[in-house]
């Protein structure tokens, strides 16, 4: 019987293919190759082959003498399982991994045939909803929120936020102080999402593969002229041949490790095309030296704060469960400390937190803002502004804690029950141990803040139920943790919470940016959950995704790594060392790693993928020399836009945006990087990221580019598992709980799914309440690892004592004598700052270049984006869009600078020409700018090299915050500003 079924299926394949070929797109696809595909059982007892010729297909029973592709099944059961139109993918993958099905032949043909069969199934799906004006409403997800994308005649007409309709589930309601709050029935989006159409159609799009004119892969490669010589257009075949040949050559000549893949984060959204997905799968299949990222937005929390209280798996920042409701019901005061969620949107969350903060304002909750900049959050909400000098935040924290001790206004009972080491800490505050009481007057010289204000703040804080919000997310992310004193500051934040009864009603960390009552258990994988990577080591794949979406695992055989901030040094000096970002336990960060690693080749080829990251690397001009170094034999850059460091590549491969290919994703969901991160949203939104338009020019999706390179290495089928990107989307969909609520067909049409809110009676407990009340942990946080509990599982924190430790035992054990990260968190003035007197004489202004407000990383900036026209993003002068620096009226006046003037911002590391914004919104002595400009545009003007692109990290130090860490410190940077009289672009 089974044999008969198999024979019938094989017979039916021919008419199915012929029928499909009636659709022009499929006919074209079928006509791409003339070949013979043999399908058979390995014992040859059943066999049929298919002859494709000129777009026609014919099937014949039996063996062909010289088939191009052979698909052989071990037995009849395997064949039937795999030929099922809706197969059990666990079985398929199992059969493939264990050689129960073997596909042989030219890789390109294997991939073509497998995808062809899938494309026939997909052709039946209706994508999007037709509109009265002739457009079709499709969906996408971006770094700034989900969007409807209206398309007509192959062109994007408009994008809008998604308004939920009646068929979407009801929203939650929070009742607080006699009022009811229900969020808008809409996904609010960030400006960079609203600008996406201009980004897709940017004039900086790379439309053809290109090769540097004086690069000859078989002759002179001229690395010294990278960034100088121009490019010529080449064909995809030539480009891919060069890259594939070079991969082979590198492996043969230098051996494993010589290929380096420095990726960038967040240039596009989606679970399939993301770097932790398709790129990782590609990289693992060829073997590569990994770039070890530093915890760039978490530095002080990871290297400092976590040692006091654990939370290594959250990169040292606090959780936030239940805090929206707790804050609205109980709190009197929110202290925003280096925290500007209105600018940075909690990373990907659009303006979801904004509405909740406006509720807080309605309820009369008061606000305080400690920031060198009167930032967007302070502007919207109002409240007392503390214009603090950058990097001096720990001094302010000490003075506040001093007042609490002197006035007896800290939570003595909590400290006695839930902490260790307080006496030593108190002695330091009071100056008993070092002769310097940390009084409000003591901090004046450091911070520039009047002692009276500090005393008033300390008293207000202690007498009110207070939420402390350090960083944009409300408990971390960006700001002061990215300066020389970042760890001191983050450590202080934890100690302040310990002194005020962290976890008691109304006393917590947060700013209403996260902790909404959405359903946390509804499963959909986040972007760091591995996607299609098959990688179990460097993504969170093993936690859920690998079980839920069986796929063939991949492994990178190369253990060698280069710390990201030392990428240039590794090339220029031939060596580098760093410390790992690994959250599995607090101890992991103490073991250094070195490059090169014994047994591996130093790097000789760079495969750059993703967005430009030139401007996010400190002291970035180091990279220019590195890119031109003779040891780097080949640089390929797979990029959407011609910007940043793309101009240093030998071969440029044009990738398309996520609106030109299929992907799937959940808004704001980082998975392993950001557990339950979607609880910063009012509604969880999961969307198919439709292929809205065809790739522009000759550009291709990253997935397609990887496939075609790997086809040349015989690995195409291994990479694709026979799937198109849409097939992978379907596999992700089916792995998730969405498939329990909506069919794949409906999902493709409607495009999005809103997860029903958690039932009122099922709302989760409040972060740290269990700890404050001495109960076992009761929030749904699968961390720390079971082994990390001090005593009994689920009781206490993951510190050795299980308590908050004023003097961390982990530092006592692992790093007891580090003068830059002392066990007792004493104040050490920034190594680059006002206390560095000699340097400050030459460069008297402190620059902070924070995460940008309107763009995200380098996406949506530059490249002719609509964002450029926002008055506070860039300023047009003489036809060029300049990056903006903000300075105080006093500093501007003394330099003869007016708003809108061009200025040179400089120090010994470099010079950037910017447009000046002059206002009282910046503390005196401070220059406020943003990092992450997409542009790097060096010009030699009057004999001096200046950047007119806005790459502020040309000016920042590459030094780590502290010895024994790999921590960037861009917010401790001294500069001078002069009015710029030179000619512009």
């Amino acid at each position, binding site marked *: 019987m089974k044999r008969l079924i198999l024979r019938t299926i094989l017979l039916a394949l021919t008419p199915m293919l012929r029928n499909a070929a009636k659709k022009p797109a499929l006919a074209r696809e079928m006509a791409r190759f003339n070949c013979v595909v043999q399908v058979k059982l390995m014992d040859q007892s059943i066999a049929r082959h298919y002859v494709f010729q000129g777009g026609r297909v014919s099937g014949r029973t039996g063996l062909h003498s010289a088939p191009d592709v052979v698909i052989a099944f071990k037995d009849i059961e395997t064949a039937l399982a795999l030929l099922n139109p809706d197969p059990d993918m666990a079985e398929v993958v199992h059969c493939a991994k264990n050689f129960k099905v073997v596909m042989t032949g030219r890789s390109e043909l294997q991939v073509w045939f497998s995808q062809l069969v899938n494309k026939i199934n997909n052709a039946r799906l209706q994508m999007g909803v037709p509109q009265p004006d002739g457009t079709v409403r499709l969906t996408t997800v971006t770094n700034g929120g989900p969007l409807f994308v209206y398309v007509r005649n192959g062109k994007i007409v408009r994008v809008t936020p998604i308004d939920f309709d009646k068929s979407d589930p009801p929203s939650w309601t929070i009742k607080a102080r006699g009022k009811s709050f229900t969020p808008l029935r809409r996904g609010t989006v960030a*400006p960079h999402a609203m600008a996406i159409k201009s980004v897709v159609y940017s004039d900086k799009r790379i439309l053809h593969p290109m090769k540097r004119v004086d690069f000859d892969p078989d002759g002179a490669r001229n690395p010294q002229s990278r960034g100088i010589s121009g490019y010529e257009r080449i064909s995809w075949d030539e480009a891919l041949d060069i890259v594939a040949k070079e991969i082979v050559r590198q492996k043969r000549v230098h051996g494993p490790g010589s290929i380096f893949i420095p990726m960038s984060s967040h240039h596009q959204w989606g679970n399939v095309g993301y770097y932790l997905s398709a790129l990782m799968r590609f990289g693992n299949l060829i073997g590569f030296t990994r770039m070890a990222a530093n915890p760039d937005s978490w530095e002080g929390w990871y290297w400092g704060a976590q040692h006091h209280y654990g939370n290594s798996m959250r990169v040292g920042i606090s959780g936030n469960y239940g805090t929206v409701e707790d804050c609205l019901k109980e709190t009197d005061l929110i202290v925003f400390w280096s925290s500007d969620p209105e600018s940075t949107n909690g990373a990907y969350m659009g303006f979801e937190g904004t509405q909740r903060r406006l509720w807080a304002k309605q309820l009369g909750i008061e606000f305080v803002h400690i920031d060198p900049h009167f930032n967007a959050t302070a502007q919207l909400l109002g409240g007392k502004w503390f214009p603090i000098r950058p990097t001096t935040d720990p001094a302010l924290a000490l003075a506040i804690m001093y007042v609490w001790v002197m006035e007896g206004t800290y939570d003595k009972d909590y400290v006695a029950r839930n902490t260790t080491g307080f006496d030593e800490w108190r002695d330091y505050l009071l100056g008993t141990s070092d002769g310097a009481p940390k009084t409000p007057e003591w901090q004046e010289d450091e911070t520039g803040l009047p002692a009276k204000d500090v005393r*008033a703040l300390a008293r207000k804080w202690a007498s009110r139920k207070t939420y402390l919000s350090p960083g944009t997310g409300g408990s971390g992310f960006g700001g002061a943790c990215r300066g020389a004193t970042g760890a001191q500051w983050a450590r202080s934040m934890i100690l302040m919470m310990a002194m005020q009864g962290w976890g008691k009603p109304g006393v917590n960390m947060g700013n209403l940016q996260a902790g909404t009552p959405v359903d946390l258990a509804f499963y959909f994988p986040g972007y760091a959950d591995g996607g299609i990577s098959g990688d179990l080591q460097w993504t969170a794949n093993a936690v859920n995704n690998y079980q839920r979406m069986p796929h063939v695992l991949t492994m990178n055989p190369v253990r060698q790594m280069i710390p990201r901030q030392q990428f240039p040094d590794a090339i220029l000096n031939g060596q580098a060392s760093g410390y790992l970002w690994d959250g599995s336990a607090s101890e992991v960060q103490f073991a250094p790693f070195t490059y090169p690693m014994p047994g591996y080749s130093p790097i000789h080829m760079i495969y750059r993928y993703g967005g430009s990251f030139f401007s996010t690397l400190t002291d970035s001009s180091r990279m220019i020399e590195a890119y031109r170094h003779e040891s780097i034999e080949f640089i390929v850059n797979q990029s959407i836009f011609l910007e940043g460091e793309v101009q240093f590549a030998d071969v440029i491969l044009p990738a398309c945006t996520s609106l030109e290919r299929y992907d799937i994703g959940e808004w704001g969901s980082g998975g392993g990087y950001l557990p339950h991160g979607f609880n910063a949203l009012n509604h969880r939104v999961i969307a198919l990221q439709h292929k809205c338009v065809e790739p522009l020019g000759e550009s291709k999706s990253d997935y397609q580019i990887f496939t075609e390179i790997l086809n040349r290495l015989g690995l195409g089928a291994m990479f694709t598992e026979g799937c198109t990107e849409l097939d992978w989307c379907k596999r992700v969909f089916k792995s998730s709980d969405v498939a329990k609520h909506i069919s794949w067909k409906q999902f493709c049409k409607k495009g999005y799914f809103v997860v029903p809110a958690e039932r009122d009676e099922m709302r989760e407990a409040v972060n740290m309440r269990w700890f404050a009340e001495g109960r076992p942990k009761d929030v749904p946080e699968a961390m720390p690892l079971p082994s990390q509990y001090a005593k009994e599982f689920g009781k206490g924190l993951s510190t050795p004592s299980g308590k908050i430790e004023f003097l961390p035992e982990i530092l006592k054990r692992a790093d007891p004598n580090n003068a830059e990260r002392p066990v007792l968190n004493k104040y050490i003035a920034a190594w680059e700052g006002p206390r560095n007197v000699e340097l400050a004489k030459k460069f008297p202004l402190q620059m902070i270049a924070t995460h940008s407000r309107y763009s995200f990383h380098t996406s949506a900036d530059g490249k002719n984006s609509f964002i450029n026209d926002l008055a506070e993003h860039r300023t047009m002068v003489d036809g060029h869009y300049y990056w903006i620096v903000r300075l105080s009226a006093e500093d501007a006046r003394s330099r003869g600078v007016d708003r809108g003037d061009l200025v040179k911002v400089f120090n010994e590391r470099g010079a950037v020409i910017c447009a000046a914004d002059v206002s009282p*919104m910046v503390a005196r002595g401070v220059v406020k700018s943003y990092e992450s400009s997409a542009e790097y545009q060096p010009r030699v003007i009057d004999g001096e090299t200046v950047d007119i692109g806005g790459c502020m990290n040309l000016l920042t130090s590459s030094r780590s915050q502290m010895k024994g860490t790999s921590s960037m410190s861009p917010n401790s940077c001294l500069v001078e500003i002069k009015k710029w009289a030179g000619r512009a672009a």
Partner: protein
Amino acid sequence: MSEHWRLIIDVALCENCGNCQLAAKDEYVGNDFPGYSAPHPLRGAETFRIERFVRGEGSQIDVAYVPRMCNHCADAPCIKAAPDVIRRREDGIVLIDPKRAHGRSDLVAACPYGAIGWNAELQLPQNWIFDAHLIDLGWKQPRCEQVCPTGAIASAKLDDEGFARVKREQGLEDWSPGLNTRPNVVYKNLHRAKSRAIFGSIVKEDQGVQDCAAGARVRLLRDGAALREQVSDDFGDFKFDGLEPGGGPYQMTVEHESGRAKVEIGELAASVALGIIQLR
């Protein structure tokens, strides 16, 4: 009476996110809506912009943002300047005919609000058309309202009487009342941008230690008559808002259990940050 589209913008809720400006660019740049609007250029004809107003100094400042666009005036000066080119629809939306307006760069100056941009490429004056083409398709609101995260922008279709009532009840103001164009874009909390404010911080001293004087009674007077009264907050701070530009001179008295103070303030050309006021 016919109902006209109106836009009500709450200045206190605008945080300058730029979404409204971007939505206007997204909608009109490169898109042709025959009968409504020709494609807007990528840049140079900004029909939507946000203006910034900063008041105060030192640690006591506030900032307001005002989205500005075509006011769809009932007595539109642009229509008076070119009645054959610009028309006002039944629903109050003002449209510039993209065919007839060709070459009429003079119309840019016809708008006293600066809300008509010049499309150099097509040689056309262009305005923000209230998304009339979408309203006609059944959209319930213009895109600037939909993308606004704080609800600072709200549209309403009201007859003149209803509009007058809403204006009165909510204290809505025209951007520039002196122009008498009967604009249909009106603002709430416009004082945040247009009025003057006096900021100050009261300090007490006890045995050489300075502290913020909370709970002080601060009176603002003119010609000896008390105009307003405030109580300083926990940081000793106070702010008198909504004062007329050029108003004054004012006097201020401060009373607190630990002392008193008196301050003379001249005419308010700009807002004033008095800084620290020491009680004696």
